């Protein structure tokens, strides 16, 4: 082989290289092409190098230089092409970050549970724990121990569902008051949420079973001033701000004095602030304290009861109480957070 022939082969390789390199579209192809051109063992450049010994000794210097030039040129082209290929491949593989996340289903708590939780949390801050009691009760715990006079119109305040002669579905959570006082010595500070039952038709505003929430504080020296302060504090923490509360007369056989608490709230219906009754309350009747085997001279206490469903309904503008029971998933998932 002559030097000219060798130089011509070098030029040929230099001319072919850009076309070959341009075919590399992906990193994988790129590796192949690199091998094909400048691979150490069997690339075209290696082939040329292998033929160097065939040249006359005086020609090898020029031939070597020519090969090196070609190699440098190809290497540079390869580097440029590689950068270009990498860039375009990165672009092709990049995520479209505007697309939606892959979510799981969101669970939710019932709106009435949410209200109960918030109330319980506030009273927990005020030193209360949670007491529970059975929904199927005796007349003793539901009425007698709570100072309901037998065969008296006061009984008509509670339309009762009976299970047996003297057993019934509790009409309020107040039986838990008596059970708790019988079981634990004062000081007692408990909250009793629970299901209660009334003999009512199931319509937009009534349900034969609904949640109630009871509170009870019994110790020496507990007074009406304490009741007012604690329940007022609760209302301000629950409704927020410098909420005004007021207390008016009411009657429940198991408290004396008996009262109701109104809170001044804005129901967001454009009618502005107004008084809304949110709970019944009073000083625990001495007969209730005695029924639980405690000395009513020594121990005094206060109690309150409220309906969290009513609060949930007014809070969320729920017009029909049946929505709280239907369990329509489209309703329930509105309370997922």
């Amino acid at each position: 082989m002559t030097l000219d022939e060798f130089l011509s082969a070098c030029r040929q390789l230099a001319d072919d290289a850009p076309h070959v390199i341009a075919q590399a579209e992906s990193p994988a192809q790129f590796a192949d092409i690199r091998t094909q051109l400048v691979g150490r063992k069997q690339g075209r450049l290696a082939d040329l190098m292998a033929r160097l010994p065939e040249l006359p000794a005086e020609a090898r210097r020029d031939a070597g230089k020519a090969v090196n030039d070609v190699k440098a040129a190809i290497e540079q082209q390869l580097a440029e092409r590689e950068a270009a290929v990498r860039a375009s491949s990165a672009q092709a593989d990049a995520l479209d970050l505007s697309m939606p996340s892959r979510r799981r289903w969101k669970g939710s708590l019932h709106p009435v549970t949410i209200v109960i939780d918030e109330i319980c949390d506030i009273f927990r801050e005020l030193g209360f724990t949670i007491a529970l009691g059975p929904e199927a009760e005796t007349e003793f715990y539901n009425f007698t121990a709570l100072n309901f006079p037998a065969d008296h119109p006061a009984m008509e305040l509670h339309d009762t569902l009976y299970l047996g002669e003297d057993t019934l579905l509790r009409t309020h959570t107040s039986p838990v008051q008596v059970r708790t006082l019988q079981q634990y010595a004062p000081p007692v500070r408990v909250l009793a949420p629970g299901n209660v039952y009334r003999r009512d038709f199931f319509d937009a505003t009534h349900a034969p079973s609904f949640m109630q929430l009871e509170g009870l504080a019994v110790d020496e020296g507990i007074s009406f001033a304490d009741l007012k302060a604690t329940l007022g504090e609760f209302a301000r923490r629950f409704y927020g701000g410098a909420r005004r509360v007021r207390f008016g007369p009411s009657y429940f056989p198991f408290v004396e004095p008996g009262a109701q608490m109104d809170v001044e709230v804005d129901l967001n219906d454009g009618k502005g602030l107004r008084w809304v009754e949110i709970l019944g309350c009073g000083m625990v009747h001495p007969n209730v304290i005695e029924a639980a085997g405690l000395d009513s001279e020594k121990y005094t206490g206060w109690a309150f009861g409220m309906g969290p469903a009513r609060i949930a309904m007014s809070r969320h503008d729920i017009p029909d109480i049946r929505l709280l029971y239907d369990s329509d998933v489209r309703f329930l998932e509105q309370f997922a957070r």
Partner: protein
Amino acid sequence: MIVSHEWLRAFVPHELSAAQLGELLSRHVVTLDGMESLRADLADFVVGRVVEAGKHPDSDHLSVTKVDDGSGELKDVVCGAPNVEVGKSYPFARTGTVMPGGLLIAKRKIRGAVSNGMLCSAREIGLGDEHEGIYTLDTDAAPGTPLLSVLPIGDVRLDLDVLPNRPDLLSQLGVAREVSALTGVPLTMPAELPPLPDSESVGTSAFGETEATADGVTVKLEDTQACPRYIGVVIRGVKVAPSPAWLVERLQSLGVRAINNVVDATNYILHGLGQPVHAFDLSMLSGQRIVVRATREGESLVTLDGTQRALATGTTVICDGDRPTALAGIMGGEASEVNDGTTDILLEVAWFDPAFVRRVRKAVQLNTDASYRFERGVDAAFTGKASGYAAALITAVAGGRITAVLDAGKARTAPAPVALRVARVERLLGAPVKAGEIQRTLTSIGCVLEADGESGFMVKPPAWRHDLTLEADLIEEVARLIGFDALPDVVQPFRPGTVPDHALHVTSRRVRDVCVAAGLAETRPMPFVATAEHESLRVRNPLADDEPYLRGSLLTTLASRAEYNLSRMQGNVRLFEIGSAFTATDGRLPREDVRVAALVMGALRPPHFTEPEPPAYSAWDAKALAEEIASAAFPGSAVTLEPVNDSDRPQLLWDILVDDDTIARGRVVRVALDRPVWADEAFGVEISLGVMSSHDVAPAGEHAHVASATAGRTRSPWANVRYTPLPTFPAASFDVALLVPTDCAAAKVEAVLRESGGELLERLELFDEFRGDGVPAGFRSLAWRLTLRHPERTLRDKEIDGRRARLLQTLERELGVRPRTS
């Protein structure tokens, strides 16, 4: 209970507006349910103040004025009255107001001048005949104030929510007493009510006997328990006719329809003074007798409402000489009803026992104004006076003459005195109340106080307050009369309570969080169902007969809720509930099991572009859910899901066992639903969290206090958890693919693997199940990955191979299970 603002003012001539009165009563006496103006036609009229007035350019007698109606914008109003004066206020009808005559006030032009409303004369707003000029209001009220609140016109009805402890408030007189106590304005009998008749002039029976006769008429009490006192007043020569206008108006102010002068007078006494009164046509009373006696067999009565009522034998009723003629305390009989031709009447003014009236009223299911009051308690000390007022009123409005008063029986005794300690008032209210203040407030409602020692009183409640029997009752009176809002509210230091959080509450909270995290929605469905396994769980007196049973399973209600959603085309249903399930017991009360239940169906995940059609919930997802919930419910305990292979109950998948329990704590099931074709299969999980104790804590009047304040508290489940040291040597893992007969449970194979893997076996994962090509019929291929680790050294390959070989030998020996070779 309706009271009339005007009628109250006839008793107590106070100066409060109806709104002020309502506020006063609701703060101190009784909840005010509502107020209704009887001149509702004037509700839209406001006070308008004339701020400019000038002559109309085109008229001699018209003026053009600018009126401030409180809206913030002065209104141009054309006025024809000669007396319009700048600075004065007049009744103003804005545009849009409808006049009592029906005319709509609209914006219009009067001889070229715009008029936006109308200043009104007295006649125009129905206040008389005066129409010479507009009605000048004598008021300082701001422009825009509703006219009804500044003019003493039209009566206002107040609707009071009188609760069963205050029967004394069930009359105008009763409420008037409270108004008098609160305002300090003395109570008087209304001027329209004639004075009590002079008792000397009529024949009066001896007092206290159970039989009284005079003027040929007899009253006889055979049941003095049901009817302790009965006053019969004989009035002869009445002329039944329409009532005078004032009486009609009084009754109408409460919404009571006028009938005739005699009946209206009795209704006046009922609603005005709180004493039910009945007038018999004396000529219709056989034997001229009233006998209060027990019914005999077969007796019945047609009451005033025209209903024939069978009477249970032995029920005490009002009879004449022959037969029943009135339901005592409830309703009179049709036969002896006063009619247009009646001339002689017997007026019944009696006191019936509340429990007796309640019993009969419930038996005959007839609630009347009379029974309502007798049941709650009518003032027994007022019977005599009430009979006098009733007779006087009848003779005043219907003529006639009182010829006899037959007073049989004795009044119930007055309320007993109650001791009240000044110190106890302070203790209960949390604020000192001066003895003088206690005396003033209690005296104002009719109590009589005598000093009792140095720091107390003996308080004699008024006859109409039988609810005041205890010291606390009197303290309530003091508190409400002072005003609950006037009492201090002081946050006092408190001692921490002794009651631990109820264990079922603590458990429920944990379970709830797991369910929400698993993507379930909490629900609180109605716990009644249409059928039950046991009759004794039936509510005895359900209001509706379609769902009279208490549920025995929460899944029953969740299934019906799922169907509710399916019927609304909602196929992705994930619900959970924590609530009670009831089962009958031999004891008095059913067993009340607090449970958590979950129902899942539909897509396991929301669709995403990477997974447009996510898989549906499968039995495996339900199993995982059950495991998660059970672990949260019983932390620190071992939860096992035991397959149930019960061909009779194929819907049962697994029993949930906790620790070494032999009785399942819960179950996982396929839920049978009324399911449309597009809906997926539903799975249910139900787990008992614990039984709610319902036995008596202690007998009545006793307690069973636990000695220690920490009793009842459960130890933290975390206390049993011991830390495992982190590994320092590498693990080795290998896979085994086995041909397992289809009737051999994977768990059985796992047990052998675990057993022979020994202590070095760190993890065992079933990662493949395959049936088909290469797997013989009756077999499946199951593949496990085993991870082994020695705590103190690196395992050698030879060791692992040896262990693998032994493991396969054991499997073959014990279960006949061989590796899959292909």
